[in-house]
């Protein structure tokens, strides 16, 4: 037998006809106020273009995301624990209050279904009271944070946020107070009406403010594309990416209206943190502004009044924003979509970008070198050609084939592979996987590169690829899918980690800090493998921002090929952070990170830590093989 913790909840015993009429008018007004704003928003979302190749199934992943991210509030809590828990308390209280509120409104018509004196009613009201206390505490924390602590991510103060916090607090306070007033007094009636008014004022404020996420974000999380930073296919011959309102898909519009303006994206954005124009939050809010003013049928360019082309091309596609977003907004496909719109129509004019595109239109690699340079390297290093008999195709990538430091990484990996007795060969001819042009939005060039490579790999009967470059790995595995079936591919950290026990460690107690490359960590979820390999050569320490919170080196998204950055260099910020750990070695697992830090450390001068790829660290302990 359950004992109630609280006295019975006091509800007014009767309501007069005029009270009922007043409630009906106010409730209708409140619902009308809600719909007047929410109706057009819903209309804009539904009138947007259908998402090409959107499938509701398999639905298991969607249910799991919904339960984990929405019901459990896992993402909200994990990334900002105090504010996250406060938010979760408010959210759970809202869920618990759904029934209470329904009952509350029903009582005026004598239709209340929860009896404050009954066993079920008493249990549920006590249960809700527990959440009401938690919610009131939570909203206080959030209020203090927003109006007193004021982290800059939250943007400008909004009086509406304050009003909403006040209303939520009033809802909880009036509910709790009703446990402590006599059942038949005017107190109960006054509390009932205050509670009701707070509710009816709250409702029309929802679609007007960022609190729209209450309604939309559960759908946004449930309907998201699912793959991390997944670039959707183009719909048809007239689809060139996000050019105008007519290109906004239902998912993009839904996401634009779901933004809760928490600024986590901005807090983690390497561009925003180094003085660039790009702010992922403003990109999303820009689309919202566009939809509000022009709507989804407009031919007005998306890069114009609300979003700047400059900002779209400052993104390193590191995905920190998308990874952090608690309401399921997929920033990378949006930003890449805007780039596609600009590049596929020729609207983007950039000398460095054009140079990269022309180098890949006319040649094989992003560095603009002659392919004979690769042949020379392959010959000089004695790399066997892949002939279909070997297990692995060692994919060199542009950096591994042409960049001096990239080549050193390949040579080190080859030493380890030979030591392990792995059979491998390199392609006679490789073209860039298309990673930089894919992220910069050049679909024409990407398709050409992907198709040429897929054909060459199929001809050579390649089954398994291992590569030193996380960008190559990602592009081969995920992005090439649009044009064929790529072979199995893995990053050398995964290969090396599998054989880590067979590799001789060295005991020199060197302190190594491992930098998680975006395309290996967030994109591929590989965090432990490279650490296991790096640990062969010393003791690991962690940078303040590591694993899924790792801070980009600045190279991704094709940016390594573009001109000088505005503001501080991303690479310098990250290099300084890595150096500040006191480690004598910075371990990398991506040739692009490597080249960025090499330049950053060179600019710093003496005293910089040594820069080593994990393949080089693994090769350190090998006996000399001559």
């Amino acid at each position, binding site marked *: 037998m359950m004992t109630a913790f609280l006295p019975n909840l006091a509800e007014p015993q009767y309501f007069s006809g005029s009270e009922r009429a007043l409630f009906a008018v106010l409730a209708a007004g409140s619902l009308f106020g809600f719909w007047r704003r929410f109706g057009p928003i819903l209309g804009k979302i539904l009138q947007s273009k259908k998402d090409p190749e959107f499938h509701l199934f398999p639905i298991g992943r969607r249910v799991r995301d919904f339960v984990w991210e929405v019901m459990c509030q896992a993402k909200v809590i994990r990334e900002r624990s105090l504010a996250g828990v406060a938010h979760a308390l408010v959210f759970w209280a809202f869920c618990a209050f759904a029934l209470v509120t329904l009952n509350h409104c029903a009582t005026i018509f004598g239709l209340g279904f929860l009896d404050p004196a009954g066993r079920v009613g008493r249990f549920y009201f006590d249960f809700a009271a527990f959440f009401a206390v938690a919610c009131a505490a939570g909203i206080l924390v959030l209020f203090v944070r927003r109006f007193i602590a004021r982290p800059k991510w939250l943007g400008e103060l909004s009086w509406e946020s304050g009003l909403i916090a006040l209303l939520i607090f009033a809802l909880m306070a009036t509910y709790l107070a009703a446990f402590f007033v006599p059942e038949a007094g005017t107190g109960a009636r006054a509390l009932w009406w205050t509670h009701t008014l707070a509710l009816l004022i709250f409702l029309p404020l929802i679609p007007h403010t960022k609190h729209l996420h209450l309604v939309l974000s559960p759908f946004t999380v449930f309907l998201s594309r699912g793959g991390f930073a997944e670039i959707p296919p*183009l719909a048809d*011959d*007239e689809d*060139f990416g996000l050019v105008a309102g007519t290109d906004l898909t239902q998912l993009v519009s839904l996401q634009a209206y779901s933004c809760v303006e928490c600024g986590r994206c901005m807090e983690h954005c390497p561009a925003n943190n180094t003085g660039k124009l790009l702010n992922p939050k403003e990109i999303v809010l820009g689309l919202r502004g566009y939809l509000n003013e022009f709507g989804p049928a407009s031919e007005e360019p998306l890069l114009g009044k609300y979003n700047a082309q400059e900002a779209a091309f400052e993104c390193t596609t590191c995905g920190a924003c998308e990874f952090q977003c608690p309401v399921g907004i997929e920033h990378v496909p949006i930003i890449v979509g805007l780039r596609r719109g600009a*590049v*596929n*129509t*020729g609207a983007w004019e950039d*000398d460095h*970008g*054009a140079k990269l*595109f*022309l180098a890949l*239109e*006319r*040649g*094989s*690699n992003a560095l603009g070198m*002659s*392919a*004979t340079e690769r*042949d020379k390297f392959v010959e000089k290093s004695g790399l066997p050609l892949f002939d279909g008999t070997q297990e692995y195709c060692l994919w060199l990538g542009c950096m591994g084939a042409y960049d001096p430091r990239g080549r050193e990484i390949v040579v080190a990996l080859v030493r380890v592979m030979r030591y392990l007795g792995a059979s491998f060969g390199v392609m006679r*001819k490789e073209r860039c996987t298309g990673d930089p042009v894919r992220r910069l939005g*050049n*679909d*024409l*060039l990407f398709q050409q590169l992907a198709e040429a490579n897929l054909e060459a790999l199929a001809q050579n009967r390649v089954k398994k690829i291992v590569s030193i470059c996380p960008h190559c790995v990602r592009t081969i595995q995920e992005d090439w899918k649009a044009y064929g079936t790529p072979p199995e591919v893995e990053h050398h950290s995964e290969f090396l980690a599998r054989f880590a026990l067979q590799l001789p460690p060295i005991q020199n107690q060197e302190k190594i800090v491992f930098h998680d490359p975006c395309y290996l960590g967030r994109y591929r979820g590989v965090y432990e493998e490279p650490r296991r390999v790096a640990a062969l050569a010393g003791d690991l320490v962690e940078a303040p921002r590591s694993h899924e919170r790792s801070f980009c080196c600045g190279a991704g998204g094709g940016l390594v090929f573009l001109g000088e950055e505005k503001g501080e260099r991303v690479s310098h910020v990250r290099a300084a952070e890595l150096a500040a750990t006191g480690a004598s070695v910075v371990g990398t697992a991506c040739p692009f990170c490597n080249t960025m830090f090499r330049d950053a450390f060179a600019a710093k001068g003496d005293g910089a830590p040594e820069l080593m790829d994990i393949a080089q660290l693994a090769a350190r302990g090998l006996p000399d093989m001559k």
Partner: protein
Amino acid sequence: MKIIVAIKQVPERDAQVRIAANGKWIDEADLQWAMNEPDAYALEEALLLKESGGACGEVIVVSAGPERVGSTIREALAKGADRAIQILCDDLNGRDALGVARLLAAAIKPENPDLVLTGLQSEDLGLGQTGVIVAELLGLPHATMILHVEKTESGLKVKRELEEGWFQSIELPTPAVLTVQSGGNKLRYATLMGIKRAKTKDLRTVNAAELGAEGTPAVVLDQIAAPKKQKSTQILPGSAKEAAAALVEKLKTEARVL
């Protein structure tokens, strides 16, 4: 202004070129092809002239060669050319510069263009003659090694590249033929939209035989060979001063770079 751009398809810059069994040309199997770079600059110049001249201009691309040339023509259409003429012939390499120029001139003549642009030379053979012979066959004035073209009231003002960093600015009437040097402008990249739009553009094909431009070649390609690799190192003896003097002498007389 009606501008015709003559373009050639050549092996891609990164192509691993092998000499064919008969030693007379390269083995074309497995080769990737691209637009001859100076021709790409000629096309860019044509597009810029058209864009600066308002809506009335037209850029027509003409190219001779086998079926495969179509891909390079489509690239030119994608970059902004309005229509194209493809002269089908499987024996382009058997023709000398005069033979190729006859084909091009025969295709160009009925169009009565205001301007004919082409690259100053091809990246494969590098003869540098085709453009000027076309001018001769069409009876038009020509200028070579053009970096920049400007439309004037009476005709054209062009910037030519001379030796050792010198430039020459000349004026000539239209119609005219210009052979364009690489590097005068920045090339535009091909776009998805351009490629899609190019599908609906007019691409007319004519057989070489229909042009009535046949003739016996005056020059016949006898044999091609890969360059011999050679690297020689000389150690200059003596004191630093003597070695420096000897180096300067060698740079002047042997390397001829000073």
